């Protein structure tokens, strides 16, 4: 690289300026790395304390290393059923919400119809409502209709707030979608249904999968809306809330770490696959 200034009017950079540029360039990097450290600090604490061996009820000070929390992860009464309930709800809710949300996304992107703007707004509203209002209003509905609070009310709530996430995720992919592929298929004689199933659906499948995973993650983590509408059922976050007020067994950290590990692995896989796909493209 020649060091002769080519651009007119641009002075050749002095040593000082170049050093300064070096520092500036790396300040951002250093800052970002510190930022990541800060983000990951609590996670590190959670993981570390899952191996803690507290003598008493609380898991706040380090007292010794043990694997027994991991081997006896369900030693705390109620923790296994809470986890199972959370997983069950998350599975069903994410499937339902993704299905409903995908349909809405298709309608919003592919069709011009009256009320499109309003529909957009209504879909967006739950995302811009504080969870406590969502939970409280649903509770009010159930109380007024004398619906017994429990599994079904939790499920209804979860599907409700996941639909919006599903719509946004699928919509993003649909908007960037290359219509020409569909047109080409139609030109080659496929009818609409076949085109949809053979061309569109496979191409938006990653987005649907992403929506599914997102809804699952959100559902399994939800506390506020669930807390208001669970009646006496206990999901894992509700269990943690109760535990935080009484005794925080390390098993909570164990499950938290496990969920984190699984989710992180899946995301890493996803990133890896995406990079592979990008390289091939």
């Amino acid at each position, binding site marked *: 690289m020649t060091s002769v200034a080519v651009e007119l009017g641009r002075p050749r950079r002095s040593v000082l300026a170049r050093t300064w540029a070096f520092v500036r360039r790396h300040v951002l*990097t250093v*800052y*970002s790395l510190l930022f*990541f450290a*800060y983000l*990951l600090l*609590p*996670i590190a604490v959670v993981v570390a304390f899952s191996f803690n061996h507290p003598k008493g009820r609380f*898991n*706040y000070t380090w007292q010794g290393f043990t694997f027994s929390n991991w081997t006896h992860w369900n030693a705390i009464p109620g923790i296994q059923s809470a986890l199972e309930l959370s997983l069950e709800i998350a599975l069903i809710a994410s499937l339902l919400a993704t299905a*409903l949300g995908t349909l*809405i996304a298709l*309608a919003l992107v*592919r*069709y*011009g119809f009256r009320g499109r*703007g309003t529909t*957009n*707004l*209504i879909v*967006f*509203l739950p995302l*811009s*409502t*504080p*969870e*406590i*209002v*969502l939970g*409280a*209003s*649903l*509770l*009010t509905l159930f*109380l*007024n209709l004398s619906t017994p609070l429990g599994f079904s009310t939790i499920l*209804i*709530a979860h*599907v*409700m707030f996941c*639909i919006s996430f599903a719509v946004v995720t699928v919509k*993003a992919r649909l908007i960037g979608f290359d*219509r020409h592929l569909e047109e080409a298929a139609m030109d080659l004689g496929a009818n609409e249904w076949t085109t949809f199933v053979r061309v569109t659906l496979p191409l938006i499948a990653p987005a649907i999968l992403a929506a599914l995973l997102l809804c699952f993650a959100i559902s*399994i*983590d939800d506390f*506020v809306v669930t807390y*208001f509408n669970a009646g006496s059922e206990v999901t*894992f976050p509700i269990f*943690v809330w109760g535990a*935080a007020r009484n005794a925080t067994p390390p098993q*909570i*950290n164990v499950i*938290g*770490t496990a*969920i984190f590990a699984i989710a*992180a692995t899946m*995301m890493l896989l996803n*990133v890896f696959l*995406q*990079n592979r796909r990008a390289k091939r493209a």
Partner: protein
Amino acid sequence: MGLGFLHRHRGSTPYLLLAPGMLWLAVFFLVPLGFLFYQSLQSGSIDFGYAFTWAWGNYWDSIKGYRGQFERSFEYAGLATLIALVVSYPVAYWIAFRGGRWKNLLLLFIVAPFFVTYLIRTLAWETILADHGLVVRLLTDIHILAPGGRLLATGTAVVAGITYNFLPFMALPLYVSLEQIDPTLIEAAEDLYASKWRAFLRVTLPLSMPGVVAGTLLTFIPAAGDFINAQLLGSPTNHMIGNVINSKFNELIDYPAAAAMSFILMAIILAMVLVYARAVGTEKLTG
């Protein structure tokens, strides 16, 4: 040709597609809000039952009685949003412009905290910020904290908790809009003699505004209604309106007052969102 697609299928198809999902949202999101409003105009108690009495007094009593909590909620949420914006903008910028092949991986780091249950992350902060923990001891040593001071059970801890928990909500939209900026625009600016800094101010920053707006909203709104951080990291003098609503619903069983408060909270937030929407255009917001 694309338009043909659109017009050829006017009629029932879009409505059929929309129906199941929108019905769900209508019944379980819109209708409940109506019930909430109805409940807020009731009066009574758990002992004697509730009756609809056009009790507008509930609203006035809520504002009067819990003004401190309302103000604090917006104060904490606002602070947290501002801090989140300032803190995550540089990182979003760094990933968008310097990330290269590692972009997706780096984004993963930002989203990672999400994968630990919200409550568990906040409990971890209780451990980290404990009075006899490293952080407090360090801050006392370098005289930022007075000796014998504490971080937990203060507003600072609550704001810090809220900021941390909502960082991904701020960072991701920022990243998305920064990433979409065409780098040739910046080059062009620099070709026209702008310094790097001016190019940033005049080109990058304005182009990233949609991300700033989105991130701000996605952070501020849930933060304003939060009560978990205040409950776990704060003291009763730091309680937000979310704590009061939670207590009124789930402990005192004073449904009318709680409903009125929820409505006031939502109304204020909705007003802010609509103002934003006007300024920016709904499509930019909802995409």
